[in-house]
Every structure is written in C-alpha cells, then in structure tokens.
C-alpha cells in the first residue's frame, strides 16, 4: 500500500455520529455498530471534510494530541487499514 499518495475517505454507505468524544458508525451492509474512541473519532472527523492522506491525518493527530509525527503516522496507517477492512473508510478514487 502506497501510504504517501493514497487518500482515504468516509464510506458513503455508512452513517456516523459524534457523541461525547466518541463516534458511532453503522455499516449498513453488515448491520454492525462500531464505536470509535477519542483518537479514532478525531481522525474520522478529519475525513468528514475531505479525503486525506496518512501524512495529512498524522499531522492533525500530532498537533491535536501533542505526539511525535512519526509515531502518529504509524498509528494512522494502522487505523486506516483497519477502518478499510471494516468498511468504515474506503480509498478515494
């Protein structure tokens, strides 16, 4: 996976809402409810505005939570891979 140029976006077939720093996402295709924690919720909210690369998400995460960008990038890459597998995110064409 080329994380540098790959842009991720919210799967338009999902329904998600923020409550109390968490995000609840329903993936209708498998009728599942997913709960995203505070960090994942921040990333999911970033993707609400426009598709983003791992680097862009890592920058936002590092600024928001005062962490090293390199570590943030690794966490974001894992997050995106997991979210794509769960059909919460998809790769933007």
């Amino acid at each position, binding site marked *: 996976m080329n994380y540098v140029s790959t842009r991720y976006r919210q799967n338009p077939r999902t329904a998600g809402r923020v409550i109390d720093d968490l995000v609840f996402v*329903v993936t209708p295709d498998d009728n599942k409810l997913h709960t995203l924690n505070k960090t994942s919720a921040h990333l999911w909210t970033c993707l609400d505005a426009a598709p983003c690369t791992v680097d862009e998400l890592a920058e936002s995460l590092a600024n928001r939570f005062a962490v090293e960008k390199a570590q943030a990038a690794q966490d974001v890459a894992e997050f995106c891979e997991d979210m794509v597998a769960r059909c919460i995110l998809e790769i933007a064409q």
Partner: protein
Amino acid sequence: MSELSLSIGGIRILVRSDVAAAIEGMRERCASYESDTGDIDLIVRFAARSDFEPDEAPLRPYPGYSCRAESAELYRLWRRDAEGTVHIPTDPSEPIVADYTGLPTRGSLEAGVRVAMSLALPRHGGLMLHSSGVSGKPGALLFSGPSGAGKTTIARLLLAGSPVTALADDLAVIRRDTDGTWCAWATPFSGELKPARQSHAPIVAVHFLVQSDHHRRKPLTKAELVRALLRNMLAYVDEPQAAARALDAVIDLAERVDGYVLQFAKNQRIAQYLGLG
C-alpha cells in the same frame, strides 16, 4: 376485502386483507386501538396464498422477518409463512405501503403490521424498543433488554406494588413530540400484560435490566445509553439513510432522557427502590 383502521403510537394504519378471519382476529386483539380519525400514515395489505412457500429461507429465527433494503425507498421482507415489500415514498405526505402475501394466519398479519410500523416510525420521529414500560406520576419508566432479561417480570412487580399502569410488555413505541419531549406509547403487541388503551407518557428513564439478588441502579453515560438503545431497538438499518435516521433518533433520545443499568431482585421492593411505591 376486509379492513381495519388503527392508531398505534400516533401512527394511523389501514390494514386490508382478503381473509376476513385474519382481520377479525386482529380486530379482537387491537380493539382499543381502532380509529378512523386523521390521515393514513401506513397501509398494510395482505393477500392470502394457500400454496405459499418463501423464495428464500429466512435469515432470522421464526417468527422474525428477514429484511433487505433494495433501496432507500423499498424494503423486501420474508419469513416462513409470508413475504412482502414495504415502499417508503420520498414524498413524506404519501403513506408508506406494505404489501404481503402468504399464509393467512393472525400471526403473519400482525407480524407484518409490526415490521411495517418499525420501518414507518423513523419517518415520524420514532422507533420501537424491545422494552416493557409502566406509567406513573413521574412519567414513563421503560425496562429494556433481550428475551429473558425480565422485562415482563419487573413490569408485573411494579404493577402489583405501586400506582402505575402498564404501557408495554415487550415492544414499546417511542416518539418525539413537536416540543422535543420523548413519549412512550402503549401498543397491542403485548404478551401477558394488557396496556391501557392508547396511553402514552413522557419518558423519564430507560433501564437496561440485569437479574440479581439485590436492587442497584447505575447511571449510564450518554455514549453508553446510545449503545444500549441501538442494541435493543427494533430497526432495520441495512440502508444508509435508515441507519442515519436511527442514529439521529437514538442520540436525540439519549440527550433528553436518563439511562441506567438496573440490577433487580424479584420482589416488590423494586417499586420502592425506584421511587414508585
């Protein structure tokens, strides 16, 4: 063609079937819900087929309906003895129409009405919750959980031990009024309890039940309440718009009512514990 005109949870429903006995059976069960006032919100039509066999095997245990969203406007439902479609028009002034065909039993007709209602309610700012409920001076208290959690048991204990009336036994309709208040409505979809005719009350709290040897109530955070409500509502969310409506309804409800995990012992002291005795 026989027909029956009802109002359940404030939803006006017209039920039609070519099997008079099925309609009369439902009329007997829903006697206190008959109404011919107001515009029709939901039409349920049931055509009998004595040689019915479903096209697909049901995905859910009988008597549940399996459901698939063909689009935001069209749902397909099926179970062992009936199948049908529910059409939700994009124009909200037009009634939702459910068309079923199958074996003409009271169970298949009533279940068809119940499922069609669960699809119609979100359009009217409501949803169905697997819960029992009682109505007293403070308002409606709902008790939710899966089968065997004790929904009917706790309702019976409260009815015997406090000045409350039955609102629901297994399924409650909850709807948001125009002023934002969420109310619980009695329905005829009950087992052992007989809710008062057409009654409804503003919801004070929703409790999620755990059977125990003592009484203890623990408040839920808003997020915990949202999760618990989503797990216990009767809703088909296999289509994005439906999922979004369900989420919005549940989140709004969680903003306005209190939620608790309620451990309860099978004795009438629960009424006093909940401040009803």
